[in-house]
């Protein structure tokens, strides 16, 4: 019923509604994925995507013209996620930002090739499983870069930080991931060795 009404309106105007629904069809999956990876809550992620689109629709109704929906949708969703964190997390996002925001990073951390070299040593599948364990400021940039495929400039505009800060965060996020993966591998190796010793002792 709702579809019919909106579609008839679309037939009359063939304008804002059509563009908006096209944006929904194109980006809803990516937005949901981003939200789900950021907050690790399936139902809540759906709600955030819903809220994102309703807010954008309200904006359209006020007469604003949105030339490109993608960055605008990501911006609204990102703000909603920050709100979500502020509601739930004991440790505020501001505190997290404060911890690393003042550090401008070393030369290695600012180097793209250094990040590439670092990433080359990491198993992406394992890293994906460990995303939840990253602090949000790091998780955010990893998801934006490797899941959503945003460039440095887009990310900078979205989270309102300098590109250097973004690079530093990516570098540190990768480092953390590598350490975690290495720790995980070591632990698995230790377990495997321990199991082998038990088998030998039994024989």
């Amino acid at each position: 019923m709702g579809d019919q009404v909106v579609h008839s309106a679309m037939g009359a105007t063939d304008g804002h509604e059509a563009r908006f629904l096209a944006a929904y069809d194109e980006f809803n999956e990516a937005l949901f994925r981003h939200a789900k990876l950021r907050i690790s809550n399936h139902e809540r992620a759906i709600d955030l995507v819903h809220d994102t689109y309703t807010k954008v629709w309200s904006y359209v109704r006020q007469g604003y013209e949105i030339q490109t929906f993608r960055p605008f949708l990501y911006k609204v969703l990102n703000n909603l996620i920050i709100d979500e964190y502020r509601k739930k997390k004991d440790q505020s996002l501001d505190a997290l930002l404060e911890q690393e925001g003042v550090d401008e990073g070393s030369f290695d951390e600012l180097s793209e090739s250094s990040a590439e070299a670092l990433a080359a040593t990491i198993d992406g599948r394992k890293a994906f499983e460990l995303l939840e364990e990253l602090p949000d400021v790091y998780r955010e940039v990893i998801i934006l870069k490797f899941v959503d495929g945003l460039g440095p400039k887009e990310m900078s505009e979205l989270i309102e930080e300098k590109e250097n800060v973004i690079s530093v965060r990516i570098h540190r996020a990768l480092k953390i991931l590598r350490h975690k993966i290495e720790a995980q591998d070591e632990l698995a190796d230790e377990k495997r060795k321990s199991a082998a010793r038990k088998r030998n002792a039994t024989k």
Partner: protein
Amino acid sequence: MKRFSEQLHKKSQTVKLKKAEQADLRDRIVSYMEYHPLPAEMKAATAPTKSPTRQSLPLEAFATYKLPFAQMFKFGGACAAIVLVVIPFVAERAVPGDTLYAVKVNINEEVRSTLTLDPYEKVEWEAVRLNRRIAEARLLADAGLLTPAAEAEVAQAVKMHTANAKAEIELMRLSDADDAAIAELSLDSTLTVQAHALAGSVLSADVNATTSARTDLIAIAIGESLEKPAGHATATLPALPKLVARVEQGTTRLRELEASLGTEIDSITTVDVTRRIEDIERAAAEGFALTQDAETQAQEILFDVLRRTQKLIVFMTELQVRESVAIETVVPVVLTLDERNVNRATRITQIDTYLNRLNATDLEDAALAEKLAEIIDRLQSVRTEINATEDYVAFMILSSEGLALGKDATLLVEQSGAPVVVPPLVDDVATSTDAITDTASSSATTTDAVADVEPEVGAVAEIEDTTQMQAVVIPEPSATTTVDAAPATTSASSTESQ
């Protein structure tokens, strides 16, 4: 890194909505759009991104245009202010022939007329409109721009406003005869003053010959408006309470106008206006004092007070009237009792002086001597009648006759060449405006206004017949208005006719 990126991205693709969840989310958003639709103007507007195909189709049956509603609303207030405030304000200064004159007459004044609900105020407003038309005609005449067409237009407007006012008065008469009588008095007073002013301006134009503009048509229109139709019932005097209320309103208005005029009028006019206001207030006080004992007399006095008040208000509010006519013509001075006594004594002394002169004269020519004897007898008779006369009006008539006789006799003696013993004459009384006015003691009495004569300079006494008077004005005995002497001038008086 590419490997890492691909692995991570591939893994992330496993995070997705189920088909049911996706459909449900879309329904929720579509419902939201349904309950929060776009505003009508946005629906009417074309899509922000038009397809080139659509734009390139010149034969399209329908075309849509984007109206700048936001700008229209933004400037709507300014446009409304211009239309509703600025234009009417500017139009108020328009005269016939101006572009905005139609706005002034057909919109400003009609709106105000429509918003005036009280019938009495409606009549007053029509009188104000009438004054405005005449003032506009005078402005044009002064500028030499009063064309016959414009004059006819103003005359027509005068007739129309008068007719409107009279129609309103007749309607009022059905519901409230008192208010109708007061309104009629107000209208008549306005018309009378304007008639005087127009007569003055026409005379001035003739004398100066500075402009060919005449206001004859307008004067005729006013004259016709002043005429009472045959069978027009003489209005009964309004009820006392309403008269008292209107008189109080009028006197208050006079004082306000006096204060507001301030420096706009010269000092002489200020003195004259103040004197008239004092006269009116004195008469009003006298009328108020009689409300308990002699109601009818009080009504007559207050009705006359109201008439004079209205005339003075028109004189004070209309600049063109002030410039065209003397205040004495509009509202003559009313002497106080003290002033009358002084005037009476002066006139008697003058007549006695004439008698003494003439009795001491001895003419050789028998015919002239006989004629002189007749004049002396008549003068003596007048002198005797004066002594027996208490009424001031009758006294003024008799004394004027006596002074005229004395003057004629003096001329006769001078022409005969006989020596004349000339004892000095006593100066006559003159008011600040050199005028004396009184009214008759009954509504059916005809009175004469008497001019004071200065025999030494041989001025001619001017006696004007007045028409019927309707009210009695008795000066307050305790009033002590200062009386100025004017020994070297001839005073003339006129009694306001009604």
